[in-house]
């Protein structure tokens, strides 16, 4: 689950870098997100109960397929293999946890200093230390997610997000009604318009996945 959170955070962070406050306001206004692309209007929306059940069936089927193919490996298998190749994921996790503990310690000191309304010369260095720790932690999280990008869990998550887009991406027709963009999941995978899918993936994760 930690990897899911990290991956979703990454998608959301990338999106947030490219939008401003008024665009963010549009994203939270409704439980659907509308956007224009190549002069056409699209939207992504929350899945209904039937679609959620379909998604669950897809996830289960996909996981079974992947396991049978044997190309991608579960992290429990992959991590020891990476260790033999000199890539220590457990070591990275340990470093992340240590940084978290350090951040919590400074947060408590800073929180108390703020309560006591200590001057900026006192609180600023603690603030900057926290930012430094967060940056170090972020770098480690990125390193870990790059190393584990080919794990079965991560590949399954990619497929799941893409399937959510297939289920929820709609286009406005000439009658001003929203209809599904792709008739089948396979047709969506064959599309050459990666940019449209990329946008829809970003917006869908904002609707479907919580990170904080």
């Amino acid at each position, binding site marked *: 689950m930690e990897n899911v959170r990290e991956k979703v955070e990454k998608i959301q962070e990338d999106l*947030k870098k490219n*939008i*401003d*406050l008024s665009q*963010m*306001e549009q*994203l*939270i*206004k*409704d*439980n659907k997100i509308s956007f224009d692309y190549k002069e056409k209007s699209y939207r992504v929306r*929350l899945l209904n109960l039937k679609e959620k059940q379909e998604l669950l069936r897809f996830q289960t089927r996909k996981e079974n397929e992947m396991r049978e193919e044997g190309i991608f490996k579960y992290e429990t298998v992959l991590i020891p293999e990476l260790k033999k190749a000199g890539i220590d994921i457990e070591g990275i996790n340990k470093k992340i946890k240590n940084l978290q503990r350090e951040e*919590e310690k*400074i*947060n*408590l000191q*800073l*929180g*108390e200093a*703020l*309560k006591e*309304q200590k001057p900026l010369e006192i*609180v600023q260095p*603690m*603030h*900057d230390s*926290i*930012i430094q720790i*967060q940056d170090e932690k972020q770098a480690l999280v990125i390193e870990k997610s790059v190393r584990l990008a080919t794990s079965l869990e991560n590949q399954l998550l990619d497929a799941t997000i893409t399937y959510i887009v297939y289920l929820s991406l709609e286009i406005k027709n000439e009658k001003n009604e929203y209809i599904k963009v792709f008739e089948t999941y396979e047709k969506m995978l064959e599309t050459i318009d990666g940019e449209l899918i990329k946008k829809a993936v970003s917006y869908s994760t*904002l*609707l*479907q*996945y*919580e*990170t*904080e």
Partner: protein
Amino acid sequence: MKRNDLLRELANLTKYQILLQARKDICSVNILDNNRDFSKIQISFINWLQFYQFLRQEVSMDEVSDIVLIDDVYADAYYFWRRKKYREWLEKNYNKKRKEPSVHALNISHSRGHR
């Protein structure tokens, strides 16, 4: 160096803080277009609205300076410390482990005068 998240910046806007208060006083005031089936980002936004409402109360009562309203790092540190103090207070007063307090719980304790 200031670090702010857009969603939090939005929740901290006076406009939304006024709407949140109005929503509590007058039920017909809506902050979002939908009033059910919230998306995950909407749930995060509502949580941040309450977080900043709590911080604004603390600032208005001079418990902390308004520096917590202009920088996420200060906001998080103060809230983290405040939550720990609240948990300690709960344990001391009830002598049993309670679940981790939410922003809402802190707001309640605040209105009951706990420091």
